[in-house]
């Protein structure tokens, strides 16, 4: 399991950054997920390790948000913790303003919508896989995805830059 676990870590970390939009929270969530997986490796039934890991992270993130460790509405947009301030060596290649806008737009989504959107868009999951990982019906996957895409587009539009396509 160890070698396979290692192979999923990059995608898992990307998902953590997508879920949290903030380096400290992402690294905390990432480490907590790996620790939880190692603790519970006996309860892993040997199928679809990737799905199991992403399910653990999604659940831990839901708890994190529920416990109030994410309060985007209380953070002024300009001061919202963006990935640009993360300093992971990655941001030099990125447009920090775009990253902040995307994170702010993602923050307008509910954690459940956000998780579905990221699993599909960032991680390339099929709808069926998302349904299995999150243990929700297919119809729920589709409605969350729809609301997430529409919500993201609306938030980015309200950001006064009409569309990403015009960049």
């Amino acid at each position, binding site marked *: 399991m160890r070698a396979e*676990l290692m192979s999923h870590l990059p995608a898992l970390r990307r998902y953590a950054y997508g879920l949290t939009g903030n380096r400290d929270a992402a690294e905390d969530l990432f480490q907590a997920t790996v620790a939880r997986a190692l603790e519970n490796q006996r309860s892993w039934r040997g199928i679809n390790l990737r799905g199991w890991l992403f399910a653990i992270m999604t659940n831990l993130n839901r708890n994190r948000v529920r416990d109030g460790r994410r309060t985007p509405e209380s953070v002024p947009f300009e001061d919202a913790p963006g990935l640009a301030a993360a300093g992971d*060596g990655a941001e030099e290649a990125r447009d920090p303003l775009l990253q902040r806008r995307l994170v702010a737009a993602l923050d307008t989504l509910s954690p459940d919508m956000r998780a579905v959107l990221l699993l599909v868009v960032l991680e390339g999951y099929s709808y069926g896989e998302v349904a299995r990982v999150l243990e929700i019906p297919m119809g729920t996957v589709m409605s969350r995805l729809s609301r997430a895409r529409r919500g993201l587009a609306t938030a980015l539009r309200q950001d006064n830059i009409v569309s990403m396509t015009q960049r």
Partner: protein
Amino acid sequence: MTDRDHIDITEDDLHAYLDGQLDPARRLAVAKHLESHPALMAEVEDWRANDDALRGAFAPYATGDGVDLPEPGPVQRRVPAGVLMAAGLAFAFLLGGGAGYLLNDAVVTETTPSGFSLADGEWLAREASDVYLTYVREVRHPVEVGAEEQDHLVSWLGNRIDKPFTAPELEALGFALVGGRLLPIGGVPGAMLMYENAQGDRATILLARNIGARDTAFQFSHGDGVNTFRWVDGPVAYAISGFLDRPQLEALSRAVYDHFEST
């Protein structure tokens, strides 16, 4: 969406179209529908652009750098807590004099050098690697005392390990001091100094009171993805660890060695 010719194109179809999850016939039907509905097409293209932006923005974080898993040896399997957390807790408890309160013998055994040959300093490489792995991903509190309090830091650490020292200047190699912390190493106080370069790569210097090793030249070891150079000089054992390649780590180690030789 209510066009009579394409009455059966649903919202779900639009998403599945974007995500490549339609069969070819259905995909064609959606494409035709969009061609005759420019406003809807623009909306779908807007979603696609946002998806691309998301993928681009987060792709750089899909890295396994700086991640490593603890060895799944028989000892650690008995440790109930997550190992990264456990390592931090172990240090915290040892620092607080609470060793043995929470930790079972297995953990204590793991963090003491018994089982390694004292003479060759192998234990130190193991300790250095563990310390590095424990703190390298710490974003908020990798160090107890930051570099801005360097004088205080080194005098405090120096007092604790009975070895006055100053922090090496590694700017020429691109590394700046982040700070340091006190750690139990081999059951006695030790000091860890953390450095970081502009790319965010971190390296740690461990100074430990020598608990019985002979003086040695540089020795290289590798474990869990961490490279370590160590040497023993009289009362103090040193170890430099990082996810750096060997030449880079060796250059750092030479600079550190020169620094401690001349002070």
